[in-house]
């Protein structure tokens, strides 16, 4: 199975970086991201414990050529609520939300990768999540 139009996955090297994707979370509710040539943010706005709005914002440069702008817009279909990549992220968030609701009154086990926190040498770890919750407890004075 192959895409009829492969342009959505074209990658124009526009930055001096070995990476084609980078996602930076700014605590507590903002992700600043680059995925190939799409530049964007995901901003979570909570409406209480059971509901939030996710605001997607996509960017281009003022000096982009019309072709680059079209490319960014076309590739932007990777993102968004039903984006080729974004769709899966949204489903994952739904699973997390469901899990949180089930364990709200108690505690949850977050021990993937042991008990290390912060930076890790592997993706197969919840080290960053443990750090986030530690900081969250400090901020919430728990």
């Amino acid at each position, binding site marked *: 199975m192959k895409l009829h139009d492969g342009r959505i996955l074209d990658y124009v090297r526009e930055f001096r970086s070995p990476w084609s994707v980078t996602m930076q979370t700014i605590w507590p509710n903002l992700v600043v991201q680059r995925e190939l040539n799409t530049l964007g943010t995901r901003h979570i706005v909570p409406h209480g414990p059971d509901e939030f709005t996710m605001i*997607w914002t*996509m960017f281009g440069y003022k000096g982009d050529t019309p072709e680059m*702008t079209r490319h960014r*817009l076309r590739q*932007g*279909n990777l*993102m*968004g*609520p*039903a*984006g080729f990549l974004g769709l899966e992220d949204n489903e994952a968030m739904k699973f997390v939300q469901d899990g949180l609701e089930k364990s709200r009154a108690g505690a949850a086990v977050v021990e993937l990768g042991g008990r290390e926190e912060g930076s890790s040498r592997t993706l197969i770890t919840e080290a960053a999540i443990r750090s986030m919750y530690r900081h969250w407890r400090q901020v919430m004075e728990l």
Partner: protein
Amino acid sequence: MLPGFVSAPVAPELARALRAEIEEFHAAYCAVLDAGRIEEWPAFFTADALYRITGRENAEAGLPVGLV
């Protein structure tokens, strides 16, 4: 109106003749989408057609993004 679109008057007889054809086209288009036969959807467009998705917020702000 989208740039490049030019509105022009149509003779009443021609409008009457085309109306049925256009309505049948719309009915077929909607039937295909309602049935979920998404593979047949592109056939309703010309090869050089541009299908541009936007949202009200961005359309009013003059911004081009249309995330689905």
